[in-house]
């Protein structure tokens, strides 16, 4: 299992702030997104959405998640 966390408008698309999903071993980000419904997977693939793995910002490139990880999807923050 890994925990996906959604912020901002992604919460509405995901139908909630968190989803637990099962993975079979280390999983590249691309494969993870393939397992999600398209209306959610597409906005998550937007490079303006930053990623935090276990509470730290990480680059998208060659990201691999493992069981027990928390992966947060952070859309651009709102303005003033």
């Amino acid at each position, binding site marked *: 299992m890994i925990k996906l966390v959604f*912020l901002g*408008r992604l919460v509405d698309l995901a139908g909630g702030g968190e989803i637990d999903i099962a993975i079979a071993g280390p999983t590249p980000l691309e494969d993870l997104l393939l397992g999600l419904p398209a209306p959610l997977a597409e906005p998550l693939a937007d490079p303006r959405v930053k990623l935090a793995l276990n*509470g730290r910002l990480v680059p998208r490139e060659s990201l691999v998640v493992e069981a027990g990880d928390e992966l947060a999807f952070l859309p*651009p*923050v*709102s*303005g003033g």
Partner: protein
Amino acid sequence: MTAHVRLLLAPFDPARETSEFTLRYPEAGGVVSFLGQVRAGGGCEALELSHYEPLTLPGMEGLAASALTRWQLDGLLIIHRAGVMLPGEPIVLVAAAARHRRDAFAAADFAMDHLKSESWFWKREKAGGQWRWIEPREEDRQDLSRWA
């Protein structure tokens, strides 16, 4: 030269916070504060700020540390609300105490520009009974470029 940074989930009293902060720095000649509140009268019924625990407060602490290295300050206070707020409720309070008022003004201004455009908050606004997400603004990016 101390930072006081807090992320609150319940309303706070900006007057009390500012005066407690000021009392800590009797050697400062001046204290500049900024209070941001939910605007009344513009049709906004409520504002909700969500945050991401592992990033939001550490980000605010990093911002405070960077202001403290950049200007000669006696102290810096940053208080930011998360959760649902009603019109007239405080959202953010920044106060800077310094020997010279120019430093206090610049630090408070800097902290606000960065809080507004870079800190990990997502906002939605309720108007006419409908919640609507607030998008990033070009203006905020311009504000940031003042400090580059």
